[in-house]
């Protein structure tokens, strides 16, 4: 993959991530002025699900890159998109949190603290966001150098916990009997389980040929 194609693809990814936000902001403006139903009958709920689902989808995409690279080495250039997907996931998570603090709670801090301490689905959501903060802060190349690759990698494994907390937040938030979080849960489970599976598979074939196959001359 040439550098020029990467730059072109990165521009596309930026557009794909920002266009929904631009659409949301534009319709938010309409929903607060001339077209009350620009975001549907329950605009606050709409913004909540829009930003929440966006966060989970971007997190899952960023988590898909490593297993894809390992299965298809030709696609290893995908690593150059991981940081931006992760940062966009954090950006959507911030929009989601803002929706809660502003539209749901009207900046009532006592209500927010009460919610966080008493409602497990909000606790899970805030936990997921908090886990993403250090990752966003250490996303620069400078941080990787400063921390050292090993430590940086260990820190960034927090993304597994953040994604799990995010999906748990989704399940705990919907009514019992509603199964909408099922699909994203399955995808996340596959991506998380793929890692130890691929480790296992890549270790096994290496030891086999050395002992069973005679040297070829």
């Amino acid at each position, binding site marked *: 993959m040439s550098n020029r194609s990467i730059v072109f693809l990165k521009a596309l990814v930026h557009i794909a991530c920002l266009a929904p936000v631009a659409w949301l902001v534009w319709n*938010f403006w*309409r*929903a*607060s*002025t*001339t*077209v*009350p*139903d*620009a*975001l*549907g*009958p*329950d*605009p*606050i*709920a709409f*913004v909540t699900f829009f930003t929440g689902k966006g966060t989970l989808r971007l997190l899952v995409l960023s988590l898909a890159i490593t297993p894809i690279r390992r299965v298809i080495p030709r696609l290893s250039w995908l690593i150059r998109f991981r940081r931006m997907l992760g940062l966009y996931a954090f950006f959507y998570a911030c929009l989601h949190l803002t929706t809660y603090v502003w*539209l*749901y709670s*009207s900046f009532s801090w006592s*209500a927010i603290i*009460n*919610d966080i301490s*008493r*409602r497990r*689905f909000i606790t899970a959501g805030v936990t997921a966001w908090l886990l993403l903060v250090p990752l966003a802060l250490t996303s620069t190349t400078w941080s990787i150098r400063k921390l050292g690759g090993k430590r940086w990698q260990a820190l960034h494994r927090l993304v597994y916990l953040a994604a799990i907390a995010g999906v748990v937040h989704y399940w*705990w*938030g919907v*009514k*019992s*009997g*509603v*199964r*909408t979080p099922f699909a994203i849960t399955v995808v996340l489970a596959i991506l998380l389980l793929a890692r130890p599976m691929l480790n296992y598979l890549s270790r096994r074939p290496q030891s086999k040929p050395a002992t069973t196959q005679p040297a070829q001359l």
Partner: protein
Amino acid sequence: MAAAAATGAAAFAGDRIARIFDPKTSVQAGTKLDTVKSPLSTTGEDLTPYQYITNYNNFYEFGVEKSDPAKNAGRLQTRPWTVTVEGLVKKPKTFDIDTLLKLRPQEERVYRFRCVEAWSMVIPWVGYSLSEFIKECEPLGNAKFVQFLTLADRKQMPGLSQSSINWPYSEGLRMDEAMNPLTLLTFGLYGETLPNQDGAPVRIIVPWKYGFKSAKSIVKVRFVDKQPHTAWNDQASNEYGFYSNVNPNVDHPRWSQKYERRIGAPILKQRRQTLMFNGYGDQVASLYNGMDLRKYY
């Protein structure tokens, strides 16, 4: 800018018209009902537009998404329709829907509607007090509760297999709650018969309770001496109590009930305070004298 706004408004109007005429989402109403005014009607509230009342529904028999009932309820056959009355009554009876429609004069009753999910509407229902119907049922003295059962027919209701609710949908009221004049046996809204997605052809409306207490598309009314099981209480008893009175002081385990989002209001004006008993305390608070409403939520 103005041109862009005009184009946007035209596109929006077009969309709205398309929604009305699209056979899949079209509302299944249209028969006008002659109504009389009622002193029990709520005043001083802006009515929620018809479009929202008929496209934003919880009616799990037709799917779990809010837009599913408008899409799927067209399959529901509301004629012929009968309501069977059984249990602790002088004699079991079956009422035809056309008999029920004419049993008493149809009144227009504007009520606030508060969903347990913290959204709300203001709806001009059409019907008469459930107490009038109960008199016709002739319940026995030992009848302490009344149970309502919704139709559960897989052929007409594609949502039955989508969720784990214990079908048929069952709801219930204590006898004194059912006899309160505010409790409405409901046949229509906005002066016309109910659209299918809003519980056609007959439902109840209990305006001081969360919406799920108001059973839709009722086929059976049963008078009993013990508190009947109810669908959402079976599903999650810590979240949905038998009483489920609108109460800003008793939170749902997953969110506060202090505020609600008014459907159809501009986004920054959606949020408003929830009123005790949804604003109907003067008429109903006495039903719960001496009861701990935190325990009997």
